[in-house]
């Protein structure tokens, strides 16, 4: 009994540690003062005004576009790449994986600047360059999520399906896909998360007038962050949180119904 309680307390402390700053920010979104250190009473006005401010909605939509486009494209390229890599011989595979690790291991600022040096030589900075940069650092997360699932998957089932006359596409859909699906899904989610959170790389590769929420926040630091941004972040966070809850509830139901 004591063990169980101490386990729970430990779990609680860790989650408090991870979520405490988020609670603070949610609190700030209701603060009726522009300063982040003075409490000016409770208000909901930032939630109303965050949708009317054009710079904020502009940055918000750019963020969504970049994040989602980058996540979708990198999930596609990354999943295909993972399938390809898993079929490679050991030597080629380690070369590919080595290169894949580079964006993960480089300091963000180095990745950002090296991409900027490249873009400046060949094209104009703008929306597209940010998108390319995001895809570049998203792909490794997808590959590293999908590859282990492919390695766990039973290869001979796929080949058996082919031998039994299934077309490669059908065999993939029926045999391989169900096995790697969770990996693809978490890869996609990681890609979304990483894009959403990135600052350094976006900062160096963006063109004039292109702003994501992160780069906008950065220029706001000097004269105080607009409270609308706390409100918007809270909405974004709660959206993700609700989605997560619903998904978990649904998969619970599916499971009890035995459909898995």
């Amino acid at each position, binding site marked *: 009994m004591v063990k169980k309680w101490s386990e729970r307390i430990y779990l609680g402390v860790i989650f408090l540690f991870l979520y405490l700053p988020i609670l603070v920010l949610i609190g700030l979104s209701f603060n009726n003062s522009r300063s982040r250190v003075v409490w000016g009473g409770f208000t909901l006005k930032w939630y109303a005004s965050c949708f009317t401010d054009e710079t904020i909605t502009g940055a918000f939509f750019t963020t969504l576009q970049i994040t989602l486009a980058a996540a979708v494209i990198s999930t596609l390229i990354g999943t295909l790449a993972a399938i*390809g890599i898993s079929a490679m011989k050991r030597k080629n595979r380690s070369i590919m994986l080595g290169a894949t690790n580079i964006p993960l291991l480089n300091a963000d600022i180095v990745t950002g600047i090296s991409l900027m040096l490249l873009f400046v030589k060949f094209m104009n900075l703008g929306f597209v360059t940010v998108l390319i940069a995001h895809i570049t650092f998203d792909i490794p997360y997808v590959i590293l999520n999908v590859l282990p699932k492919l390695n766990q998957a039973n290869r001979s089932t796929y080949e058996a399906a082919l031998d039994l006359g299934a077309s490669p596409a059908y065999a993939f859909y029926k045999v391989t896909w169900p096995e790697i699906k969770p990996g693809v899904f978490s890869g996609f989610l990681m890609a979304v998360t990483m894009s959403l959170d990135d600052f350094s790389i976006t900062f160096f590769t963006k063109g004039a007038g292109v702003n994501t929420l992160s780069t906008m926040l950065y220029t706001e630091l000097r004269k105080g962050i607009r409270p609308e941004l706390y409100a918007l972040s809270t909405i974004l966070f709660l959206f993700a*949180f609700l989605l997560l809850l619903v998904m978990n509830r649904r998969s*619970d139901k599916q499971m009890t119904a035995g459909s898995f």
Partner: protein
Amino acid sequence: MYKLKKQFLAGPYFIWMIGFILLPLAFILYYALTTADGAFTFSNIAAIADPVHVKSIVLSLKLGAICTLVCLVLAYPLCMILSSFRFRHQSFVVFLFILPMWMNFMLRILAWRLLLSNNGIVNSILAAVGIGHIKMLNTQTAVVFGMVYDFLPFMILPIYNSMVRIKPETLEAARDLGAGSFTVLVKIIFPLTLSGIISGVIMVFVPALTSFVISDLLGGGKVLLIGNVIEQEFMQGTNWHLGSGLSVVLMLFVIASMALMNVFDKDGGGTAVW
């Protein structure tokens, strides 16, 4: 034959990799090995031996190691507890840990500043219960704290994943054969989660080694990590050649630490995150 065809699926990525990973890297290397006039030089690489740079890289290695250790010590028992819950959906646990990232990173670190500052929330609570005032912000401890906060999920997820893969039967068998809890932990659980631990250590140590934003925001500009030096060379000193040279050195450190970890990792899954 199937295999050959399959390999071509990596084609688009291969092209992407050459264009946007290897080519930019070549640019950095070029800058690292030239002077402002374009002449070949090793001085940007050799600059790491400068006492100021040595100090900052030693500090980075030290704080990175402490951060990794703290993450490991916090994460391992946590993962044991989590895996004993046997969630129906493992991905749910994964999401719980990456969910905080949906709140902008800079905002979260700013929130910690509010919590830890001299007149901050934590100090007010400490004062209220009579412990008094502790200076927390703008110290090396604060920087490590911020790193642990930011990178802990990267330690938890791989360890948790390797832990849920252990079949309950294996543990039962060990107990039936008379192994105590401690023996089970050391002889069974630990070896089976080793590759997860190694992934976690790399995933935490590497970003900790290269970070510069956390040390700026929570260290109050008083803690100079090698990442800060590189940032300064690019952003303030505008000496891109020196910045590139130091980045190349930093990359070598990263590769070395990975190689070191891979020695322990026999099944080659070290780079897999989850």
